[in-house]
């Protein structure tokens, strides 16, 4: 194990602390501002002197935040679940079966990762409108179900899965789907938890695509909804905006806290042992 001398340790700690501060400080500023009354918003002190919940009350009174949140949560959960199901099935097939064109197909999956969204959004948008999916949950979920990164990570993980466990399950009489469900998936919990966080945060924070394909409360997500507090003519309503942002951040934080133990296990995992 690498042991640093005391001066280097101090330098390292200062650097890490500074780095952490640059990440935490803006978050704290958002949270503090959300508790400030209007007259303190632009005051010098970062924390509120007369804390108030008024901004949070305003958020729900002035904005259909509950509906936006429901849209966000539902579409994110459905999308992440769909992404995981598809990725697990594809990764299992790529890792376990020999079939003609396997290499080419996998190369295509990897190739899909290289294509930026900005290139594909217009044709997909046109397709969505022709299918009548504009301003629906379907528009938010379906075009994003295929996740090449998840397929790649899961496939690599499955390649190191002990072959004897597949064989033992086959000998026990399990079908391929049963092997996947009863033997493979329970041992993929750490990587699935890590992927869930990555996919959830990626989907939850998505701004561009929901902005393009949603218009009304029927499908508009919270991330787009909070924009309503931004007003170029009358000035931004910063207090409720910060309160809305704080609320909107909570689900992602909750998912992270819920799955973080599994993530840590992924990094310290030494593989599956029979």
């Amino acid at each position, binding site marked *: 194990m690498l042991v640093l001398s005391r001066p280097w340790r101090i330098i390292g700690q200062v650097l890490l602390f500074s780095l952490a501060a640059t990440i935490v400080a803006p978050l704290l500023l958002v949270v503090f501002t959300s508790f400030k009354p209007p007259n303190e918003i632009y005051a010098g002190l970062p924390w509120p002197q007369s804390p108030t919940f008024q901004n949070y009350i305003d958020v729900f009174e002035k904005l259909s935040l509950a509906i936006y949140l429901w849209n966000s949560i539902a579409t994110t959960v459905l999308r992440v679940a769909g992404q995981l199901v598809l990725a697990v099935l594809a990764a299992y097939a790529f890792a376990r079966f020999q079939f003609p064109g396997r290499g080419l197909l996998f190369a295509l999956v990897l190739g899909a990762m290289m294509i930026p969204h900005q290139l594909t959004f217009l044709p997909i948008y046109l397709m969505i409108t022709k299918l009548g999916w504009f301003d629906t949950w379907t528009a938010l979920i379906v075009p994003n179900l295929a996740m090449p990164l998840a397929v790649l990570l899961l496939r690599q993980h499955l390649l190191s899965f002990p072959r004897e466990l597949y064989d033992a399950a086959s*000998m026990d*009489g399990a079908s391929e789907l049963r092997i996947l469900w009863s033997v493979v998936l329970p041992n993929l919990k750490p990587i699935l938890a890590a992927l869930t966080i990555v996919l959830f945060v990626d989907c939850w924070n998505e701004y561009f695509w929901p902005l393009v394909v949603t218009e009304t409360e029927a499908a508009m997500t919270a991330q787009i909804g909070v924009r309503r507090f931004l007003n170029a003519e009358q000035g931004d309503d910063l207090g409720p905006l910060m309160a809305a942002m704080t609320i909107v951040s909570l689900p992602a934080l909750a998912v992270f806290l819920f799955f973080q133990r599994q993530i840590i296990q992924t990094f310290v995992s030494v593989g599956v042992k029979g």
Partner: protein
Amino acid sequence: MSSVRFVDVRKTFDKVVAVQGLDLSIADGEFVVFVGPSGCGKTTSLRMLAGLEEVSNGQIWLDDSDITRLPAKERDMAMVFQNYALYPHMSVAENIGFALTLRGVPRGQIAERVRKAADMVQIGHLLDRRPRELSGGQKQRVAVCRAIVRDPKVFLFDEPLSNLDPQLRTTARGEIRALQRRLGTTSVYVTHDQIEAMTMADRIVVMADGAVQQIGSPVDLYENPANTFVAAFIGAPPMNIAPMSAADGALRALDRDFGRIGDRLANACKIGVRPESIVFRDDAPSRMSVSQVEIIGAECLVYGEADGASLVARVERAAAPRIGERVGFDWPADATYFFDAVDGRRLHI
């Protein structure tokens, strides 16, 4: 009641021939051991029988059914793997009962059968543990238990003892054999350890380079090896194989004259002598320079060189010469084996 038949079974991986033309009939209740060095095709043969490897050519029969193309899950065979392949997320009881769960056996019956099988291999106290909480020997017992709980038609063992320490291995092989005798289930066992093969098998199939070298009972293989490979593989230490030289129309090896041997004068032969056939005697014509003596209990292994060939003798400790000595040695004439020097085939002279 299950018999197994391999009919001209071949397996190729791209251009590599893993198993070439395996023909073998295994009787109901028989314990057959495939033995050979790494890469000889023994595990591939077992996996083809299990249905885990496709057969390139030939047929495999289970009783009167051609199972060549039948998936593993439909063959009703159970396998014990080299690293046990226990499901890490399941308890011991769940591991053992998994196959029964898949067959839709009622939960109460599963628990009863698991308990009964676990008691049979003395792991009843481990049923709630996870595989990571078990020692190697315990894992091996769980793997055996998982195989017997289903009451399959055939047991398959893929080097199940190779991860155990030598002492445990000796106990385990006795237990497996006793269990198989009690259950009377047809068994195919793969190992690279010839002692395991000799001590457990009703019949041994010796393989090398994908081909069967000889099939026979342990005693048969020991006493009548078909070629130099079997002669050198079966027996511990292996048979001494020494070259022969032809001089004045007679053959000679290890300082001993064998006279004319049929019409083999022109062809070079080799002779084989089991280490345990050798006795040290001062008046013997053959001389051996002793380079090493290993005590293995009541007996000694004496290594040395005679007539340009390396030699090992297994003698009682009291009869062992000292290192550096040059001693006379002899062996009974009927304990001499003759082999063709070119293809290694046994010559019956």
